[in-house]
């Protein structure tokens, strides 16, 4: 008997202070974009973590993460790193994980933030500049 487990995508609309999230387990495409500047980001990211925890137990063969922040505060950076750590850990079990970090053209600080995460995770990121938002 073949058992197929499909997860509903996680889709969260953006707000003034929280990002747009679209995580699709069936395609392996994970998108997060916009702003992450809430004062208590752990409350917002709890729902994302719950979904990601389920995904890492039954991941797809490939996971493509696309990240494009306009701003994020230091409180959010911990939450973002936590999610990236969980998804990156899939590499250890042979799953392909690719992370593309977008930044507004000339926003060197955001580019550096991507490099920081890449350094902590010891995972190469593809860094891509985009026209100004």
């Amino acid at each position, binding site marked *: 008997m073949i058992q197929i487990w499909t997860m509903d995508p996680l889709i969260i609309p953006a707000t003034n202070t929280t990002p747009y999230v679209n995580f699709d387990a069936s395609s392996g495409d994970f998108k997060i974009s916009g702003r992450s*500047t809430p004062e208590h980001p752990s409350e917002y990211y709890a729902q994302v973590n719950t979904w990601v925890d389920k995904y890492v137990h039954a991941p797809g063969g490939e996971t493509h993460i696309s990240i494009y922040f306009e701003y994020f*505060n*230091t409180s959010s950076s911990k939450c973002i*790193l936590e999610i990236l750590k969980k998804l990156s850990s899939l590499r250890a079990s042979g799953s392909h994980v690719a992370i593309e970090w977008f930044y*507004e053209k*000339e*926003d060197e600080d955001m580019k550096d933030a991507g490099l920081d995460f890449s*350094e902590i995770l010891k995972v190469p990121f593809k860094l891509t500049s985009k026209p100004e938002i």
Partner: protein
Amino acid sequence: MTEYNEFYRQLHSESIMLTYKGEINSKMASAIMETVEPRLNLLEPDLRVRKRLYNIFLECIQNIVHHQVSKSSIMDGQPTLVLLTAEEHAYCIRTGNTVSNDLIHELKEWLDVINTLSPDELKISHLKILDRGDFSNRGTAGLGFIDIARRSGQQLRYAFERLNESYSIFSFLVTVPRTHAVR
């Protein structure tokens, strides 16, 4: 009318982008950021500087929200003050808020350490704290101050003014160069 003109000239010459006095709760923090952003978009053509200032200012405001002591909750209470000015070569963020005296030693120590670190050392420290996920030692402000120092490339200036046995005013000042900061 003359008095008003003089007042206007003074404010204009000091290039005040925003001044606020009072408690800053979550709603007020959002309102302050929503006020500053369009002004910044008009005033600063360099995207890098614009975003840098916005990020630093946001960290300053959120540090206050997390750590301020309400004026009404203590004797000798003082309102929180925020001043954002645009000078020719730099933006200047000045804040003042009441803090518990219990925090002073650790806060002073942390800021003094940050001010001794080179850009590379700041980066190492930042990544270490972030990776450890341990904010408990310094609280959310700890990483915030490192982030401010990294982004601005400037010394973090501060002072404590004792109010009473339990509380002091913590004054903080950071400048954000209008040219690309050297890292």
